[in-house]
């Protein structure tokens, strides 16, 4: 009896979509916090003057910089969308299994669409 798996047993369980969205919310939160440090450093670079600004821009325009920037923007919009759902949950609604799964899919679609529209805006300006 002692060998029965404990729940949630992360190596055995296949996480349901709702759990994946939930842990992604937390992971994006931590990632966003790290990016926030860089955002403050960027503001400091603008304050310091053109040389520091150009150096910061150079880093942001490198492949790694672009990857990080777009990853951060996606994380920001995902966290925004799922955070909005947390606020709905706080009112005591949408806890039924059907709406949990349906809204999880809506959230993923919405965060991708929002990121794509930011990308399109940035292309046409």
């Amino acid at each position, binding site marked *: 009896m002692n060998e029965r798996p404990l729940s949630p047993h992360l190596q055995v369980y296949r996480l349901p979509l709702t759990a994946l969205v939930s842990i992604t919310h*937390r992971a994006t*939160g*931590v990632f*966003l*916090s790290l990016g*926030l*440090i860089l*955002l*403050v450093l960027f*503001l*400091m670079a*603008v*304050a310091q*003057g*053109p040389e520091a*600004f*150009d150096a910061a821009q150079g880093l942001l325009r490198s492949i790694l910089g672009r990857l990080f920037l777009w990853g951060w*923007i996606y994380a*920001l*919009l995902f966290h*925004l969308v799922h*955070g*909005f759902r*947390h*606020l709905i949950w*706080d009112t005591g609604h949408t806890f039924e299994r059907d709406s949990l799964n349906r809204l999880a899919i809506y959230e993923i679609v919405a965060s991708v669409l*929002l990121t794509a529209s*930011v*990308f399109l*805006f*940035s292309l046409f*300006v």
Partner: protein
Amino acid sequence: MNYQTPLARARGLGSAREGSHHWWRQRVTAVALFPLTLWFALAVSLLPAAAGHAEVVRWMAKPWNSILLLSFVLLSIYHAMLGLQVVIEDYVHHDSLKLGGMLGVRLVSAFLALASTFALLFIVFVLGHTHG
């Protein structure tokens, strides 16, 4: 009426009487950050990718841009501090690491808030006038 056992009282592990306060501050900052984040995403995507230093300074020095940007950054730092605190509480079980982590998150957050406020004031009131 105090329902704590004398041992629990001596260890100081009773209710800290501030649990809902943390939760509530996280919600209030979340509500405020919702429109600010949409504004930030839109504003950044509308800035030309090739914008130079002078152009970025001019943009940041516009009153609505500076106040919205500073609100976004400061509220984000505060919201992040509350969130990281929960992450540490959930995953770090070693007492001294936990204390160090909490202290670190608070001190770094305070420093970032000071740095971003100073940077933006400097950009608006000093650089904004020379580039105006």
